């Protein structure tokens, strides 16, 4: 746990998030439960709330975080040094002290490939960007590193589809599509293409993904769906052009 210190004051009439949340609580008639004057006080409540739990922060104080340049949890008491690495000495949290394998029933993907949509799409991240990109696509050096989503495909698949490095391709599922440039790489399975998900609207990988969730965790099934891929001419991309005019968030 580390302390990200405030660098600038909120511009104009903008306000810090925790004050907005406290005001919402007051409007909901719960002001007495949100009587905070600082982030430190909110953190102290988190400490107390986590006491005795698996993720125990109780021993981590604001002052300790600053003094020790961060403290690793779990840290149940003020004299506990923190836990940089979990389960050292092969001691786990189960009553018998061991790690337990959890068997799960195998299920096929919600949507499997067929003759119409013969290629597996998997979506994910690239190292230069974070989640929806609302932070990282505003930072020039990161935009320069990876300005646009690419469709990674194996040379064997690219040859079959007559696609070359840098060609524009349409990646299309039963639900939607993106048109992006191809990146031909040997680091992916020949039956699978990859499109990162950090971009919105016409470049959103989730235009294609399937509406299915894991039955236990409810995590969406973004890692597999069926698509077809074809070479297309360079698209006219009105939204992309607007973004460039607005300061190059592209």
């Amino acid at each position: 746990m580390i302390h990200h210190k405030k660098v600038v004051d909120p511009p104009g009439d903008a306000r810090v998030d925790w004050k907005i949340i406290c005001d919402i609580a007051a409007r909901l008639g719960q002001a007495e439960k949100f009587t905070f004057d600082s982030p430190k006080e909110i953190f102290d409540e988190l400490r107390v709330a986590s006491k005795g739990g698996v993720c125990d922060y109780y021993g981590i104080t604001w002052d300790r975080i600053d003094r020790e340049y961060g403290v690793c949890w779990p840290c149940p008491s003020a004299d506990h040094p923190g836990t940089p690495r979990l389960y050292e000495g092969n001691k786990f949290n189960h009553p018998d002290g061991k790690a337990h394998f959890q068997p799960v029933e195998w299920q096929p993907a919600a949507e499997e490939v067929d003759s119409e949509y013969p290629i597996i799409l998997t979506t994910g991240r690239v190292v230069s960007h974070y989640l929806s990109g609302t932070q990282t696509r505003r930072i020039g050096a990161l935009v320069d590193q990876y300005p646009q989503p690419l469709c990674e495909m194996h040379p064997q698949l690219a040859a079959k589809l007559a696609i070359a490095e840098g060609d524009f391709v349409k990646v299309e599922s039963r639900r939607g599509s993106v048109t992006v440039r191809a990146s031909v790489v040997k680091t992916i399975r020949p039956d699978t293409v990859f499109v990162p998900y950090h971009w919105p609207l016409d470049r959103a990988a989730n235009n294609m993904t399937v509406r299915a969730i894991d039955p236990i965790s409810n995590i969406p099934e973004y890692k597999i769906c069926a698509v077809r891929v074809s070479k297309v001419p360079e698209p006219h991309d009105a939204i992309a052009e607007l973004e460039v005019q607005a300061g190059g968030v592209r």
Partner: protein
Amino acid sequence: MNSADSMEFFIDHSRCIGCKACVQACEECDTHRGISMIHLETIMRSDSVQTAPQICMHCEDPICAQVCPADAIKKTPDGVVQSSLKPRCIGCSNCVLACPFGVPKYKAEINQMMKCDMCYDRTSVGKRPMCATVCPSGALTFTTRENIERTRQGMAIRDWQFGGETVRTKVNVLVPRSVQKINVTIEQIGTTTTDEYDVANLLMGD
């Protein structure tokens, strides 16, 4: 805290994820603001996701200094090869061509060569180089040899063979334990030999 003398630089290319945190951190330094002295190379994206951070390796007998006609590149008594001295550097770029690691870069705006000096302002007073402080994966590490031997599977070596040229560097690289020396031969240069890592071939091995 260990004394500055026992701290060494270790590069573990197998840990590099190509995030360029090192490049950004280097750029922010007051002594060469806006220009990164560390180079982050993407080796060949079509074949591999391998990336490689390149700091100055600080050769024991630095070739950059040998070929400098103006004697503008100096090595400190503790073995750190400095960037070029402004009053001496004539911008001839002999060093740029001679360095086997591609470290020195000629900056036309200032007509001078600039390169990594292992953050001498920091390391000479016991601090770690900026890049090693920000690397999230331990690809760049400034620590003791004992610590590396205790925590890493590979072996730290600093002997290189570039054709007929033998080079010993101050900076270590982590390699598999069977490797004694990194041998960069003519045959390897420009040859793609990574088909064993082609995912299609890996799948056929199942």
